C-alpha cells in the first residue's frame, strides 16, 4: 500500500471526525434533556421526556422569540454515563442550558461537573439525593423538585399519631436513595417518640425477600418498606404468601400506580398502606387534573403521570419561564438567567414551588393511603397535603445538618 493512499485515508478519517458541529442559526436555542434512555430504566426516561415535552408544548415550542431545539442526552443510570452524556451535550453539541438528570447518584455527579462549567445552567430532572444541594451545592445547579427526604414529609407523624404505630421495622435496599427515604420517615417518627427496632438492608437487586420476611420480629406494629417496581411486587407477593400480619408503610415508589395495578393477591396486604410523595394520583386540584388530561393524550403514556413526568415537567417549566424573562439570551454566560431562576416562584400542577438559598425546591408534599374504589380497584387516596416542605423538613438548618449524612445507621432510635 503506498504511502499516499494510506496517509490520505488516515487524514480523511481524522478530518471527518473533527469537523465541528454545524453552527446553529441565530433564532434557535438548544436545550438539553438528560435522562436514562438506555437499559432497564429507559421506561422512566421516556416518561421524563413526556413531561419535558409537555412543558415545551405549553409555550408553543418558542421562548424569547427563539425556536426551542431539544437535544437528548442518554445515560444508563450510572453516574459515569451521566457525566459522559452531559459532556457530549455541553462540549460537543454546544448546549448552554439543560434539564436533568433522573437518578440520585447521577445528580451528585452532574452537580460536580456543573462546578467545572460555570457558564452552563443546569436544572435538575428528578434526581432526589439530599447532598446534591444540601452539602456543597453548585451555584449553577437548580432543583425545582424536592429530594427523597422531603418526599416523606408527613408520613412519620401520621404513622405515629394517627395510625398508632409505635414500633416499626424498616426494609429497604442498601444504597443512597432508600437511606434518604428512611431518613425522611425516621427523623419525625423518632422525634415523636417512635421506635425502629430493626433495620433490614438488602443488597440492590434482591428478588427473594422470604427469608427476610421470616426474620421480622413479632413485636412490631408495622413494617416500613422502601422498594420500587419489580422488587415491591415481589415483596408484596411473598409477604402475602407468608401470611404476613403486620401492616405496611410505603415509601414514595412502593405502592405507586403500576404496583396497585398488577394482578395477584397482593390486594389483601396493601389496603390501608399509607405513603407520601411529590404527587397524588387522585388529587382534586384543577391544575393537576388539567395536567393529567394533557398527559393522557400523549402516545404510550401510563394511565397516570409518574413522578418522573411531573418532575421533568416542573423543572423544564421553570427553565422556560426563566429563559422567557431574559429573552432567551444566555450570551452573558447565563448570569441574568441564573439570577432570575433563583428568585422564581411557580404555580405548578402540584402547588406553589420556590427555591431556598441552596437552590433546592420548597414545595407541597402529598400524604396518601391505599384504598379500594367502587369498582374494587386499588388507588392512592389523598389524605392530606403537607404544604411548602423545605429541605430541612421544618427544622432549623444547623440542627438538621447536625443529624449527619444519610447512611445505614443514621438516624437510629431502637
Amino acid at each position, binding site marked *: 500500500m503506498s504511502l499516499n493512499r494510506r496517509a490520505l485515508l488516515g487524514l480523511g478519517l481524522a478530518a471527518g*471526525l473533527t469537523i465541528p458541529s454545524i453552527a446553529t442559526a441565530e433564532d434557535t436555542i438548544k436545550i438539553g434533556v438528560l435522562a436514562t434512555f438506555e437499559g432497564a430504566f429507559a421506561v422512566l426516561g421516556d416518561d421524563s421526556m413526556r413531561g419535558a415535552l409537555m412543558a415545551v408544548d405549553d409555550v408553543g415550542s418558542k421562548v424569547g422569540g427563539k425556536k426551542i431545539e431539544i437535544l437528548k442526552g442518554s445515560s444508563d443510570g450510572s453516574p459515569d454515563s451521566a457525566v459522559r452524556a452531559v459532556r457530549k451535550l455541553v462540549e460537543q453539541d454546544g448546549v448552554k442550558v439543560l434539564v436533568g438528570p433522573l437518578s440520585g447518584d447521577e445528580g451528585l455527579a452532574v452537580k460536580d461537573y456543573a462546578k467545572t462549567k460555570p457558564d452552563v445552567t443546569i436544572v435538575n430532572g428528578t434526581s432526589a439525593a439530599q447532598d446534591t444541594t444540601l452539602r456543597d451545592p453548585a451555584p449553577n445547579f437548580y432543583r425545582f423538585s424536592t429530594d427523597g427526604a422531603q418526599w416523606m414529609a408527613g408520613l412519620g407523624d401520621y404513622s405515629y399519631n394517627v395510625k398508632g404505630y409505635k414500633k416499626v421495622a424498616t426494609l429497604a435496599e*442498601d444504597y443512597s436513595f432508600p437511606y434518604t427515604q428512611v431518613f425522611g420517615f425516621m427523623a419525625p417518627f423518632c422525634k415523636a417518640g417512635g421506635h425502629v427496632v430493626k433495620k433490614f438492608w438488602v443488597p440492590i437487586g434482591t428478588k427473594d425477600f422470604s427469608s427476610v420476611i421470616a426474620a421480622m420480629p413479632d413485636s412490631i406494629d408495622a413494617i416500613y418498606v422502601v422498594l420500587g417496581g419489580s422488587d415491591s411486587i415481589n415483596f408484596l407477593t411473598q409477604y402475602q404468601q407468608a401470611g404476613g400480619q403486620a401492616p405496611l408503610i410505603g415509601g414514595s415508589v412502593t405502592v405507586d400506580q403500576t404496583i396497585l395495578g398488577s394482578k395477584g393477591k397482593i390486594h389483601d396486604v396493601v389496603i390501608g398502606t399509607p405513603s407520601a410523595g411529590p404527587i397524588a394520583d387522585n388529587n382534586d386540584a384543577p391544575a393537576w387534573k388539567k395536567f393529567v388530561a394533557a398527559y393522557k393524550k400523549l402516545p404510550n403514556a401510563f394511565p397516570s403521570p409518574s413522578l418522573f413526568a411531573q418532575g421533568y415537567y416542573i423543572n423544564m417549566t421553570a427553565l422556560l419561564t426563566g429563559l422567557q424573562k431574559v429573552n432567551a439570551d444566555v450570551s452573558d454566560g447565563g448570569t441574568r438567567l441564573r439570577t432570575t431562576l433563583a428568585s422564581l416562584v411557580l404555580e405548578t400542577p402540584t402547588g406553589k414551588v420556590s427555591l431556598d438559598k441552596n437552590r433546592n425546591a420548597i414545595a407541597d408534599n402529598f400524604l396518601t393511603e391505599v384504598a379500594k374504589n367502587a369498582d374494587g380497584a386499588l388507588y392512592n387516596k389523598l389524605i392530606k397535603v403537607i404544604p411548602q416542605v423545605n429541605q430541612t423538613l421544618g427544622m432549623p438548618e444547623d440542627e438538621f445538618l447536625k443529624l449527619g449524612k444519610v447512611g445505614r445507621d443514621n438516624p437510629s432510635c431502637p
Partner: protein
Amino acid sequence: MSIVEQPAPRLTGRQAWALVGVLATALVAWLLFAVWPSRLDAILISKKAFINSIFNGVTLAGLYFLVASGFTLVFGLMRNVNLAHGSLYLFGAYIGYEVSQRTGIWILGVGAGFVGLAIVGLLMQLFIFRRLEGDELRQTLVTLGISIVAADLMLAVWTGITYQIGVPSWLDGAVKLPIITAIRSNGTAVMMTYPLYRLVVLAVAIIIGVGLWLMITRSRIGTMIRAGVDDRAMLSASGVNVHIVFAIVFAVGAGLAGFAGVVGGTALSLAPGEDVRYLLASLVVVIVGGMGSIPGAAIGALLVGLAEQLGLVYLPTYGIVLTFIIMVVTLALRPQGIMGKARPSVAPILALDQPNKAAVASAQFGIAQGVLAVALLLYPLVASEFFLTQIGAYSLIWGLLALSMMLLAGYGGMVSLAQITSAGIAAYTVAIFGTNNMQVYGFGWPWWVLVPFAVLLAAITSAIIGAISVRTEGIYTIMITLAIAAAFFYFAQQNYALFNGHSGFAGIPTPHVAGIDWRAPVPFYYLCLFVASACYAAVLYCSRSTFGLALQAIRDNGRRMRAVGFDITAHKVVAYFYSGIIAGLAGVLLVWFNGRVSPGTVDVGQSIEVLVIAIIGGLRHPIGPLLGAVFVILIQTFAIDIVGAERFNTLIGLVFLAIVFVSPDGLLGLWARISPLLAQESLHSRLPGGAALRALTQSTQGRME
C-alpha cells in the same frame, strides 16, 4: 493369634464418615422438630427465621440446579461455555409469560418455555456452533455476542417493566408442615407454613435431576455423552454421529434453561438483569460442583442457595459476596470442583489453527508507524476539546485496559476478565489515599507517591487473581476471572468502611505539576498518549524478550516447557503482574478522567467491555486494543445520533459478532486481509524504501511460526 492379642478394632474411613452422617442427620432432625431453647433462638434470630432460610435456600437451590444443569451438560460434552445461558433463561421466561397469559394455562407456558428454547438451542448448535467446532474460545465469544444482542432485543420487545407469571391456583397457597416454630403463651404450638409452590419447584428439580442422572449413567445416549466427554474423537471413530449427540445435548440444555425461566419467573418476577444474575449463579454453581457433573451441579446449587439465603438473613451486608468466597475456596482447595474429574492438562497434539495468538511482533519503525505517531502528536491541533478528551484520551485509557488484557490473552493464552478489577483497585487507592470531596478518608498523599503506590497495588491484585486462576486453563479462566470481577463489584458496593459503598468517591482532582493543570484537555491528552505509548513499547519489547518468548512457548505447549525446566505457574503469575501494572496505570488515568470512582466503574458490564474492545481490535499485535478502543468509543458516543440511544447495544453486539465470525483477529485481521488487495496497484517497487515497506506489510499479515 489369641483373641487377647488382636488389635483393638478401629473405625475405618468409611465407618467414620457414616457415623458423622448419622450424627448430622440426628442434629438436623432435632433442629427441625424440637422446640428450641431460648438461647438458641436468640443467636439465630428465631427458629422461624432459621428454618425458613434453610427451606428457602434449598428450594432456591432447586431452581439454580435446573438452570445450571443445562450449562454443565453443554460444557461437559462440548467444552462450550455458553455465556448466553442467562439470556436463554430470560427468553424462556418471556415466552412462558406470553403463552400463559394468552391461554390462561400455566402448564402450557412451562411447556412452551421448554420446547421453544430447545428449538432455539438446536438452531444455535446447527447454524453457529457447528461451524466453530474445535475453537472453544471463539465459541465462547460468540455466545457472549449473542447474549449482548439478545439482552438488548428482549429489552426492546418487553421493555424494562417487570412481569409476574401468575402461580396457577392448584399450586398456590401455603401448606402446614410438621415443624413447630414457636409456642404461644397459652401453650399451643405454632406450626410452620410454607408456600406450596416452592416445595413443588424443589420436587420438580429433584425429579429432573434424578432423571438426568439416570439418563446419563444408564441410557445408551448417556453412555455416548459420557464417552464424548472423555474422548470426542474416539466416539466419532466408533461410528456415532457426534453432531446429533451434540445437537440433542444443546437442545436439552437450552430447554432446561427455558423451563427454569418459566418456573423461576413464577416464583420471582422477570425483568432485564435476571439473565446476568442467573448466568453468574450458574457459573459459580458449576465451578464449585465440577464441570460436566450432574451430582456436582446439585451439590454446588445447594451450597450456593443456602449461602445466599442464610447470608441474606444473618450476614446482610456481605452475604452476597459469600457465594464468591465459596467459589474461591473451592478453587484453592480443589480446582476441578467438588465432583469434577481432574483433567490432565491437554496439550494440543495437532497444531490447531488459533488465530488469536499474538506473534512476535515486528518492532520495525517503518513509515506507517511514523505517520501514525506524528498524527497522534498533532491531533490536538485539529481536534475540538470534546474530541480530545472524550474520544482521544478516553480511547487511550480503554485501549490501555484492553492492552493489559491482550498481554495475557495474546501472548499468554489466558483470557482474564478481571483487568477492570485491578484498574479499579488503583482508582480506589487514588481516591482513598489522595484527595476526594466525600469527607471519607482522603489522606492527601502527593502524586509522586500515590501513583506508584496505586499501580503497585493494582499489580499485586492482578498477581493474586493470577495465582488463583493459574490452576485453570482456557475457558475456565474466563469464568473464574469473571466471577472474581463480579465479587469485587459486589464487595465494593456493600462495603462502606473502605470503598464507601454504592456512592463511591467523587471530587478526585488531577494533580497540578510544574505549573500545568494536567486535567486540561491538551495536557491530559498528551499524558494519556505518553502512558499508552510507553506501555505499547513495553509490551512490544516484552514480546521479544526472554520472558515474553517463554510465555508464548508456555501458551503453545505448557507441558513441554515444564519438561524443559520452566516454572509455568511463576511465569504466568508474573505475566499477570505485568498486566496489572498496565491496568493500574489505566485505572489511575480513568479516575483522573472521571474525577470519581464507584462500583459502577468496575461492574460486570465494564469487565465485558474490555474484552469486547480487545477482540474487536485484534489480539495479534499491541496496536489492536488501541484501535478497538477508538472504534468502540466512537460508536458509543455517536450511536445516539445514528440509531438513537436505545439500540446501540445491539449495534455493538452485532459488530462484535461479525468480527468474531468473519475476522477473529479483529480489525487488525481485516486490515491484514485488505491491505494486500490495496497493495496490488501501488508504487511500491518504484519508491525508495519500497522493499522495506513491503516487508513491513507482510510481517503484519503473517505469523512467524
